[in-house]
């Protein structure tokens, strides 16, 4: 386990010296929530407090971005030549995969700490259990998304540009066809079908459920919890299976 932690720190310290990206995410969140969220809340009449709704949606978007970044980070390592070095280290492939997942989880915790705290203060009147459940949901979603991106990484071993195009295009579609920005009941029927396929729909509505939002505008929480759990376990397991077979003998681009 010491080797895993050492590997996690090896990658993480580059993000923390200096922590420009983390601070930038916090500043972006504050501006978006403080100005965009507040002003849109004046226009939106379909929801009682749109700023709170948007705050959680933005936190879920950040979770998605960080999960996607973990997957892309791995692909960049492969193309920069770091992967053969990591594969040569005296640790098992499963521990290597665990270190990637832990590094992603730690980055997620760092990035979300301030935005989530601000969102929770904004919503107010919460219990420790509801906060813990919301945080667990976000991590489950983050791991699930990272697993999807790692699973897609086999494309990058053929073409890094194609991988980048697919992941960025997918990201923009997944956010807009989900309940990150608006409740499910307001989606037109054609868009609602696409929203059912977006993991962010389940993540956002489950977090909102735990934080006390009106259940009538949210998806069934049992259904959402089941989908998220299946996503996290399935994609991480699939990614672990694929990676152990794809990375052997990989060449740098």
């Amino acid at each position, binding site marked *: 386990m010491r080797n895993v932690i050492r590997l996690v720190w090896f990658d993480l310290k580059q993000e923390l010296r200096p922590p*420009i990206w983390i601070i*930038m995410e916090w*500043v972006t969140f504050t501006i978006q929530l403080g100005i965009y969220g507040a*002003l849109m809340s*004046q226009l939106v009449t379909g929801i009682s407090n749109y700023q709170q709704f948007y705050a959680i949606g933005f936190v879920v978007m950040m979770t998605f971005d960080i999960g996607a970044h973990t997957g892309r980070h791995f692909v960049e390592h492969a193309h920069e030549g770091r992967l053969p070095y990591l594969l040569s280290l005296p640790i098992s492939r499963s521990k290597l995969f665990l270190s990637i997942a832990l590094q992603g989880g730690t980055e997620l915790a760092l990035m979300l700490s301030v935005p989530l705290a601000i969102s929770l203060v904004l919503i107010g009147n919460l219990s420790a259990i509801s906060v813990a459940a919301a945080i667990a949901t976000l991590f489950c979603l983050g791991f699930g998304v990272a697993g999807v991106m790692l699973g897609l990484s086999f494309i990058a071993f053929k073409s890094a540009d194609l991988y980048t195009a697919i992941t960025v*295009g997918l990201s923009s579609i997944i956010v*807009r066809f989900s309940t990150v920005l608006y409740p499910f009941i307001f989606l037109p029927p054609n868009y609602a079908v696409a929203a059912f396929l977006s993991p962010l729909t389940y993540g956002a509505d489950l977090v909102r459920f735990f934080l006390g939002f009106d259940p009538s505008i949210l998806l069934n929480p049992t259904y959402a919890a089941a989908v998220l759990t299946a996503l996290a376990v399935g994609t991480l397991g699939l990614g672990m299976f694929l990676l152990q077979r794809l990375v052997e003998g990989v060449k740098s681009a």
Partner: protein
Amino acid sequence: MAILLSLNLSDMLVVALVYGKLMDFNYFRFFVPAVVIMGLFVASLDTGRRIWLAIREGMIHYYLSLPISTEGIVAAYLLAGGLAAMVYSSSLLLIALVVLPAHAVWSTFVLLPFLFVLATGLAGIAATLAALASTHGEFFFAYQQIVQVVLLTLSTVFYPIDVVRLYLPPFLVKIVSLNPLSLAAEAMRQYTFAGAPVEPWSLIMLLLTSIPLAIIGALAYLTALHSIQVKGKL
């Protein structure tokens, strides 16, 4: 550009439609013209990425070896950035005209040269960021994201000025009013889609807010190039 197009199209055809159901006014009619300006802005910022890549990969030394003045290289980058943004936003405009009936399409031709100056000014912002971030290349995207968020959030791209006046302090309302993105979005809404007569003063304001950005960008990039010529690096 294909990725940017999917992003802006989904804003136009998904976000605008759904938000319209959440509000009491026709948000689709309000937001679709602004998506064209948003596309122009994002495409202009790509100039900074190209400058950053050229410095990082050493292509800049090749450009400096060409029989063109340094000022010529700077002008070429900014004009190319402006032109690329115009081509991109024109495709968005064509799609906007299909989904949203416009009452004065010919007004677009009056707006085009002013939007080109705006695009060049926005490319100037991107060039400034690329020149500032060049010694710490990885910071370029961080700077760009902050500038993008600030300029878009403090504009009337997403919300009317009346709402801004009700909620934000006066100095921020002034910034929003003078933001070239606000001026361009309002011009697109009023002159092309609503069919209002073109007011010269608003177009002059657009020029007055865009040209200084282009000049600052040109000076910043020129300084960076001179530094490369003298020291061989930044």
